[in-house]
């Protein structure tokens, strides 16, 4: 986009800014390359509002990770005789001044697909236009251009993972990652750095942001591009050695932070998802001497992509109210129960150990996420997924807006046509995963003395066992906050009520009030599943969609939820 007046500027020095938001890396960064291409000077900026830092819902681990990413960027840029400029303030306020001060004629950044990001970027683009600054945006945080996926699906994002995979397989493969920024690529482009750069534009410390770092244990997940690139090599080495690209079976070890784990680095953009994609592909072809890797190879990347796609056009994606894809479930408002869950005081060692790991380290295994999310929402506490999402936002390193909200909706059966019959038992599930209970002992040292038999349900241990373990339940460790069998029974019943009501509205149009309460029951089993149904209005006035045979997936509804497994005759009271 070359606004009028830029012609004149091109005859003069071309000064560019590259704006880092995510994409905190120098490899595979096409927008950064655009900033450098033919430019006389380039300045890489990152905006940080210290005032905002204190009040935001972001915990110390996430801030530390971010700061480490920024330090790493700064160090890498130094090797190219450049620096990172950490600007205190908000982009909309500061950019106009920077455009003038630095005589900027080009601004580049990586495309941000999230609704809030798009709004912010539109405002900045406007500012830039007014200042005669050319804006170049490149897609590199996602494998694909998400708008193309949506277009291919008739203007709506796919709401089942299977449908998503089908669409992906019809697209061209992702673009190749571009080269790392090097001296050669920099060419004649320089970065003017002043004496007081450190004071004015240096990366702040945690203390400066208002965190008390006394006693803070060292980071289990160190931030930064350098660390990310080391990890991906380790990750691929391990895969090659195992020569097994299938999803690894879950075992006790999987619960612990792995030195080859990559999700936080993908979230912050220290690692390019496209680089990961192509490295996986190359390795697969080498080891399996095969031409086409299955889609499941890229599972981790595709799930991320799925949620970004689902969220990009939905500003209310992280809410229940007013969110066209979210079922309105009558969640309970219960701040005390929520606090117990968030602070690892539920009395269920499996849940508490997971939440402790989350708070201490910033990462938990995805099955652990399922367990605690289910416990909070549809499994036991019947608390809104939005609350759980906020806690994850604070503590989880790889949680960004789209993926976090989407996962919580998924796990609470609020969207994406999830079956809700299966509930993760807060005792049984842990026991099956780690029978010996080492994970519990590691994160809840107070329970160390319990034998494997009772470590998942210590309240059932006889008094002698508790005494021997020097841990009396109710005194040194809380009693269980719910009776699981009763809670899950109730909650399954609630979910059923909700989904039955929804399916009853189908075919009744807007007659939601006029429920005929008779005893003649709707017999679900009379219909055969898998056929496209006439879609009636569900929650909002969304336009009706027609399925064509080619595009219909196994669950051939669009907005109407798929019925759960229960074909039993139910009461229509």
């Amino acid at each position: 986009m070359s606004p009028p007046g830029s012609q004149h500027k091109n005859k003069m020095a071309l000064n560019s800014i590259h704006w880092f938001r995510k994409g905190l890396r120098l490899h595979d960064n096409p927008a950064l390359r655009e900033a450098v291409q033919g430019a006389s000077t380039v300045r890489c900026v990152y905006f940080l509002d210290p005032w905002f830092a204190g009040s935001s819902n972001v915990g110390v681990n996430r801030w530390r990770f971010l700061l480490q990413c920024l330090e790493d960027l700064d160090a890498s840029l130094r090797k190219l005789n450049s620096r990172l400029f950490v600007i205190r303030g908000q982009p909309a306020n500061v950019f106009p001044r920077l455009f003038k001060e630095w005589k900027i004629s080009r601004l580049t950044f990586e495309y941000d697909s999230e609704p809030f990001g798009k709004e912010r970027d539109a405002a900045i683009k406007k500012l830039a236009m007014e200042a005669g600054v050319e804006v170049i945006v490149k897609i590199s945080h996602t494998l694909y251009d998400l708008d193309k996926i949506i277009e291919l699906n008739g203007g709506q994002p796919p709401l089942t993972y299977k449908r998503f995979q089908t669409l992906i397989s019809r697209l061209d493969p992702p673009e190749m990652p571009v080269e790392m920024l090097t001296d050669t690529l920099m060419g004649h482009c320089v970065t003017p750095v002043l004496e007081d750069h450190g004071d004015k534009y240096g990366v702040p410390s945690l203390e400066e942001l208002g965190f008390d770092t006394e006693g803070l244990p060292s980071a289990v997940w160190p931030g930064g591009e350098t660390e990310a690139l080391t990890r991906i090599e380790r990750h691929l080495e391990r895969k090659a050695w195992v020569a097994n690209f299938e999803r690894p079976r879950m075992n006790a070890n999987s619960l612990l932070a792995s030195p080859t784990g990559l999700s936080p680095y993908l979230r912050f953009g220290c690692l390019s998802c496209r680089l990961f994609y192509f490295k996986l592909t190359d390795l697969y072809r080498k080891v399996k001497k095969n031409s086409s890797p299955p889609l499941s190879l890229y599972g981790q990347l595709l799930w991320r992509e799925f949620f970004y796609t689902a969220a990009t056009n939905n500003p209310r994606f992280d809410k229940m109210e007013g969110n066209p894809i979210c079922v309105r479930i009558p969640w309970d408002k219960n701040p005390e129960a929520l606090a117990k869950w968030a602070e690892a005081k539920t009395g269920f060692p499996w849940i508490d150990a997971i939440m402790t790991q989350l708070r201490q380290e910033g990462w938990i295994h995805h099955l652990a996420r399922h367990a605690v999310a289910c416990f909070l929402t549809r499994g036991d506490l019947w608390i809104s997924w939005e609350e759980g999402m906020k806690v994850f936002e604070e503590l989880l390193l790889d949680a960004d807006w789209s993926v976090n909200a989407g996962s919580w909706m998924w796990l609470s059966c609020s969207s994406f046509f999830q079956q809700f019959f299966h509930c993760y038992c807060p005792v049984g599930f842990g026991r099956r995963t780690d029978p010996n209970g080492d994970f519990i002992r590691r994160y809840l040292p107070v329970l160390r003395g319990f034998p494997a038999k009772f470590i998942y349900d210590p309240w059932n241990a006889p008094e002698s066992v508790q005494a021997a373990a020097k841990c009396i339940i109710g005194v040194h460790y809380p009693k269980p906050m719910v009776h699981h069998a009763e809670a899950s029974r109730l909650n399954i019943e609630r979910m059923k009520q909700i989904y039955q009501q929804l399916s009853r509205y189908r075919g009744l149009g807007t007659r939601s009030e006029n429920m005929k309460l008779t005893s003649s029951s709707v017999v679900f089993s009379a219909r055969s599943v898998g056929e496209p149904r006439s879609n009636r209005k569900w929650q909002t006035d969304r336009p009706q969609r027609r399925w064509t045979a080619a595009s219909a997936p196994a669950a051939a509804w669009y907005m109407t939820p798929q019925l759960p497994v229960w074909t039993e005759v139910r009461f229509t009271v």
Partner: protein
Amino acid sequence: MKRGLQGNEQEDGGGTSGGCQKTLKRSRKQRREKDLEDEEVRWECLPQEILLHVFQYLPLLDRAFASQVCRGWNEAFHMPELWRCFEFELNQPASSYLKATHPDLIKQIIKRHSDHLQYVSFKVDSSRESAEAACDILSQLVNCSLKTLGLISTARPSFMEMPKSHFISALTVVFVNSKSLSSLKIDDTPVDDPSLKVLVANNSDTLKLLKMSSCPHVSPAGILCVADQCHGLRELALNYHLLSDELLIALSSEKHVHLEHLRIDVVSENPGQQFHTIKKSSWDAMKRHSPKFNLVMYFYLYEDEFGPFFRDEIPVTHLYFGRSVSKDVLGRVGLNCPRLVELVVCANGLRPLDEELIRIAQRCTQLSAIGLGECEVSCSAFVEFVKMCGDRLTQLSIMEEVLVPDHRYGLDDIHWEVSKHLGRVWFPDMMPTW
């Protein structure tokens, strides 16, 4: 408020009060010149029956807006036919995110429409106030002749947290005054034997449906009274502790209509709880009397509490195991549940359920729906299972982790095999793994 103008003009609910004005603005000359057919509709002259029909399509809020348009429409809004069904939503801001039915509306309904109410439900949140508010309304429904009453707790069972006497007296008002209750849904409430007696005394001819899972104050004798007197009872839901041989025999008596649906919740209060057994002969009597009835059983037991169950043939049609259930029990299910239509297993110990599934496919010839959570089944056995069931499996919900790849099938190709045998495209259920 805009309405899409499409098709039948009569379906257009009008619009703002300015709408009527617009039509009058046309000149007299223009009006005379038009055909009879083109004569603009005078909305205020629509017959009440048509208005009623239109209003029935509107949600309550829109209907309320429409009622503000003119007196005629206001009268239509209050026609009895529009007040046959109502769902009272009682929520407190401190305990729920959802809005409650407006208190003024509730007052209006009690004042003007309590005679008209026939199908009523109360949805309450987890606060005691909401439950008490529901009971207050119930107590005022003195002139009501309810056909249906549903007390639904949408979160924690708040009816259990209010004074029992308050609840019972409110409920009794309805039982005594309605005399024609057909459907009653009172799960998770403190209803007791005496109040059931009152129910029976007044509604025995009309009661068809009774849903009362988790009513801890009711005894087997209490429910037996209902079965003995209410011969029209077609659908019943209760907890296992209320089930007895006598109850089944009573429900199978000659005077009784065919039972259509019996739902039983088997819930463990404490680990190691002992459960009584039901004689096979009682089930046989039920089967003889009501050959087509659905027997739905929900199990929330510890693994070692299944002793008394599935030892003999039982005519269960829908089985749900909410907690881990052992291989052994699933084996017994295969042997003893020939009428099984639907099976849902949340979890099992991590040993493959191959044999058990095959046996179920062989012997449960009516099976059309199955759901498996944390279980393990080898891919080959699963394909065999699906082959044996064929396309009678209309619901096949298997979590991805259940399927264990073996020498014949991997995870990437199993869905093709299964789809082939099912006759439609099928994939296992997936969970995000980012």
